[in-house]
């Protein structure tokens, strides 16, 4: 297995083109090293992308742009993501109570793992776009289209994620992220991200209800039914319950970890809790 640590994007792209699917870009390396027994036989080249200048968080043209190799800790601590309209990002990181992983794992890595990680659930709720680079240039794919299936993303063999872009949400937007696990140090069993934008009349103008970790598809999924209940409505206790009930359009996985019947229950509870929080935040009018 070869190891490369390029300092120019063009170098990295050239290596990706050369090795194709036998190359793997790494930044935090937590997924790669955590699965090394399975992956070592498939990988001929490891490309460390941390020297490519992709660690940054900046606000540009009303878009929050986070470089792919920015760690979860950096997102947790940054002024841009720990307060204001984007603080849902810091709140999402805060649900991972393993500091060592926060210090290593990157947003690019989390986005590429179409599986049991938290960030994509929240990013989907915030209409995130994924910037992808290669020898063929740059393209942008929405978070919704980026995950194809469990552990399967839309990258071609010569591509890598370079940046994550989160457009500024409308005024009076609030977000909530809620997670259920078996113990405190655990994979997410159920995670839910809710984003609610209120109109001047206090009714819900725009909404995303995203279920992660528990889905049968293995990737974060919006609940169209739950969103439909909320849209254009004023949100009260009774409605929140209805929203939660409606989320059964998202089918939950049934496995040896936690059965579907419990996951479904936790999806409903998560939606209730996350929605309440999102509503409270939206009401603050940032």
């Amino acid at each position, binding site marked *: *297995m*070869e*190891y490369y*640590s390029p300092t120019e994007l063009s170098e990295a792209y050239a290596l990706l083109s050369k090795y194709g699917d036998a190359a793997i870009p*790494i930044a*935090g*390396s*937590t997924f790669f*090293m*955590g699965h*090394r027994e399975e992956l*070592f036989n498939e990988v001929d080249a*490891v490309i*460390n992308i*941390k020297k490519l200048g992709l660690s940054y968080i900046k606000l540009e043209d009303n878009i929050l742009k986070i470089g792919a190799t920015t760690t979860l*800790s950096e997102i947790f601590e940054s002024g841009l993501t720990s307060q204001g309209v984007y603080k849902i990002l810091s709140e999402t990181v805060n649900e991972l*109570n*393993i*500091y*060592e*992983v926060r*210090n*290593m794992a990157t947003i690019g890595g989390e986005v590429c793992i179409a599986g049991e990680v938290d960030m994509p659930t929240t990013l989907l709720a915030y209409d995130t776009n994924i910037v992808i680079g290669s020898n063929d240039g740059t393209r942008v794919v929405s978070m919704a289209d980026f995950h194809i299936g469990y552990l399967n993303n839309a990258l071609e063999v010569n591509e890598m994620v370079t940046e994550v872009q989160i457009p500024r949400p409308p005024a009076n937007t609030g977000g909530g992220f809620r997670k259920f696990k078996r113990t*405190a*140090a655990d994979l997410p069993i159920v995670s839910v991200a809710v984003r609610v934008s209120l109109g001047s009349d206090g009714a819900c103008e725009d909404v995303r209800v995203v279920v992660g970790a528990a889905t049968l598809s293995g990737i974060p999924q919006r609940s169209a039914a739950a969103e439909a209940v909320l849209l254009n409505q004023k949100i009260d206790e009774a409605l929140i319950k209805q929203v939660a009930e409606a989320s059964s359009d998202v089918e939950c996985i049934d496995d040896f970890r936690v059965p579907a019947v419990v996951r479904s229950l936790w999806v409903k509870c998560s939606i209730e809790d996350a929605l309440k929080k999102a509503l409270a935040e939206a009401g603050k009018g940032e």
Partner: protein
Amino acid sequence: MIPICLKVNGEDCPVQVKAHWSLAFVLREKIGLTGTKTGCEMGTCGSCTILLDGKPIFCCLKMAVDAEGHELTTIEGIENDGVLHPLQQTFIDGHGMQCGYCTPGMIIAAKALLEGNSNPSEHEVRLAIGGHLCRCGTYVRIVKSIMDAAEIVRNT
């Protein structure tokens, strides 16, 4: 084999490594610093926690080749000229351990916490060791030892 130089506890350690070797493996088997433990080799137990530029990481998930150019701190490096770090002393006095296997990882994680926050709440202490398992179940005294060390650090 790739020649690298790791800076461990202030010392330069030149070593030849294979690309797929973890930092934990290299520290223990090639540099001889066995204080850092490898309970699971997959980032689920916390026994391999070391500091990289002062921040706790799981070195079982870190590639050794990727650790060049950083300051690495292991349990062997936190005493000062033979004088134990306050955490080491409070863990001894307060029985913050039973078998001792999780102890280096716990102490290193706690050290990072106290360097950023010398007055943590009990909950903040538990969060700092959130990814650390102690099968002997010594959490009560581990947390107390860390709180006691925080007090010493505040008063020094």
